[in-house]
């Protein structure tokens, strides 16, 4: 029987990885459809809003990476128990996701002088964002409440990229570091990461 979910993205982590991590953490099978950059132009006009990722489920095609990730999280029980807990998780996801455009801009910058300037901006934004998240974070080893939720996975995903940029950053923030380690140590996530394909982004 075919998996219930089909995720379509590029052969990269990027905006597809949050949902992959959510399914991995829940031990839920899904079709991980990876497109090459050559295939994309022909597929683009067939998509709801001209972008990736897409999630196909029950005959419906969803777009917008966080709408997809939140839907997946809810479906597999990683969204949060109450409306309030879910809002707290959403808050963390939105706050940490503000780093993405600046980090992507830095990653793809070719001009060395501009890149150095962008690196400085990104590092400042990281400090600003992590400081806020540390203050908001719970003390039980997870960002919200006392168990792993999708916000911990989203934080881990982006924080991993930050660690690549500047190793040791997360260790300066004790509560965030705990969440980060707990995701890394989660047996399903550890297994997923061990066999995950290396991609540049």
């Amino acid at each position, binding site marked *: 029987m075919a998996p219930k979910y089909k995720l379509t993205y590029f052969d990269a982590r990027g905006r597809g990885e949050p949902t992959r991590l959510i399914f991995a953490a829940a031990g839920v099978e899904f079709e991980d459809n990876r497109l090459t950059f050559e295939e994309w132009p022909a597929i683009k006009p067939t998509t*709801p*809003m001209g972008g990736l990722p897409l999630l196909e*489920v*029950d005959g*419906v095609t*969803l*777009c*917008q990476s*966080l*709408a*997809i990730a*939140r*839907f997946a999280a*809810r*479906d597999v029980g990683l969204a949060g128990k109450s*409306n*309030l807990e*879910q*809002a*707290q998780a*959403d*808050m963390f*996801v*939105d*706050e940490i996701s503000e780093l993405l455009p600046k980090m992507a801009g830095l990653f793809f910058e070719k001009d060395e002088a501009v890149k150095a300037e962008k690196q400085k901006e990104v590092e400042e934004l990281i400090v600003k964002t992590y400081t*806020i998240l540390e*203050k*908001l974070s719970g003390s039980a080893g997870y960002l919200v409440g006392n168990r792993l939720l999708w916000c911990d996975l989203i934080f881990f995903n982006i924080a991993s990229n930050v660690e690549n940029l500047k190793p040791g950053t997360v260790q300066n923030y004790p509560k965030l570091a705990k969440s980060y380690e707990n995701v890394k140590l989660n047996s399903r996530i550890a297994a997923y990461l061990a066999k995950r394909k290396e991609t540049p982004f």
Partner: protein
Amino acid sequence: MPSYKLIYFETRGQAEPARLLFAAGGLQYDDVRLTREQWKELKPKTAMGNLPILEVDGTAICQSKAIARLIAKEVGMAGKTPLEQARADMIADTVDELSAPCLAFYILPDKNKAEVLKKEFVEKTLPPTVALFEKFASAEGYFVGNSLTWADVTFFAFMDWVITAFPGDHLKGYENLKKVMDNVSSNQGIVKYLEERPETPY
């Protein structure tokens, strides 16, 4: 019944969808509007250091969409099924992508650059996105299912700002979107709120 306090500036901005949703749902809340000076004083005392903030029985939530989605859930305007909720999220995220760069129009020190960005926005960025939104709105004037959700309200709040900043009929020819705007503005609670809310530049 939880107690709600919404804290923002005196403007519509990132808090207006939340205010509209409270109004639509008939939910009581404390609509705290801060001057810049008041925020300067309060800011270091908050964990997040940014606005809007929604306090629910003292628990503080930031991030405008997280706030709007929570209120929507409380008043039954989030979407009836998980797939409907995801659809509402999709629309709200797309509105957010469109509106996020617009803050620069007001805060850029280089006013000439701001004018260039404004022109680019209204001539190049807005029209194709409006065309896209038309496809997602039903003929009855709803983005999700057949009743008002926070997706419609979020779109309304955004266009409400667009019309302030760029007077004109940006929805000309887009009948579904015009219906969305009508459905939102004719909601009983919202009618009253729109009559009573203070006039703000944005």
